[in-house]
């Protein structure tokens, strides 16, 4: 991936799988290790789930924009939906004892667990989630000679 790439995806369950597959392929191509590839793909999957379900709410006229960019230091992944914007203050801590047995609400927590930086910017025209994984070691990115 020498240049940033961007995909415009429908608000469907298939998009979630496609986003995960693209993340797996790109992270692998960039030379991330097996565990990191899994972490990146899972974080992207969770971001895509939130965009499709909670952001766009499966609306056929709303799209999910998924973008990958390799900077000298990082893999930067952006997931943008066209929903009404998430209320971050309304998301409970999934590790709190009273929330452990809830059946949902772990997506953002998992993204934060798997990525080095997670930035969430809600607005009334959609939510943008930026997932950043630092490039560790000399092998990552060497295929592009970009280090």
């Amino acid at each position, binding site marked *: 991936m020498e240049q940033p790439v961007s995909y415009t995806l429908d608000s469907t*369950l298939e998009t*979630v799988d496609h986003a995960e597959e693209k993340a797996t392929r790109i992270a692998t191509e960039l030379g991330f290790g097996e565990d990191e590839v*899994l972490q990146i793909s*899972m974080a992207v*999957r*969770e971001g895509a*789930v939130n965009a499709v*379900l909670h952001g766009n709410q499966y609306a056929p006229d709303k799209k999910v924009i998924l973008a990958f960019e390799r900077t000298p230091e990082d893999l930067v992944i952006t997931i943008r939906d066209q929903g009404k914007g998430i209320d971050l203050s309304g998301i409970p801590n*999934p*590790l709190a004892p009273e929330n*452990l*047995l*809830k*059946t*949902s609400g*772990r*997506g953002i*927590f*998992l993204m934060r*667990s798997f990525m080095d930086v997670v930035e969430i910017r809600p607005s009334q025209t959609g939510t943008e989630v930026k997932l950043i994984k630092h490039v560790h070691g000399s092998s990552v990115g060497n295929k592009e000679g970009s280090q």
Partner: protein
Amino acid sequence: MSMKLSTRQVDGVTIVDCSGRITLGEGSVTLRDTVRDLLSKGNKKIVLNLGEVNYIDSSGIGELVSAFTTTKNQGGELKLLNLTKKVHDLLQITKLYTVFDVKDDEAAAVKGFK
């Protein structure tokens, strides 16, 4: 690879052998339907054998929690068996590992029911 489930009986305990992915959509629904079907037929001692589950997302975690609480609320008991490292690690970071009754030996899991 989508999720596949099969059930078998061992000494009055239902073992559900799961393989594939427990993720949003088909995988989660399949697990939910299977557990509900078992409970509706009076099978309240359930072991989910996750030895062949290679991927699980937050929806899948939610389904495991739902299966656990639904079974418990109906007077039953549900245990997890043979966690792969990926699933084990996920349950650790979500602090669910100690909530579930996790076993790594089927015979011990079966004997462990009250």
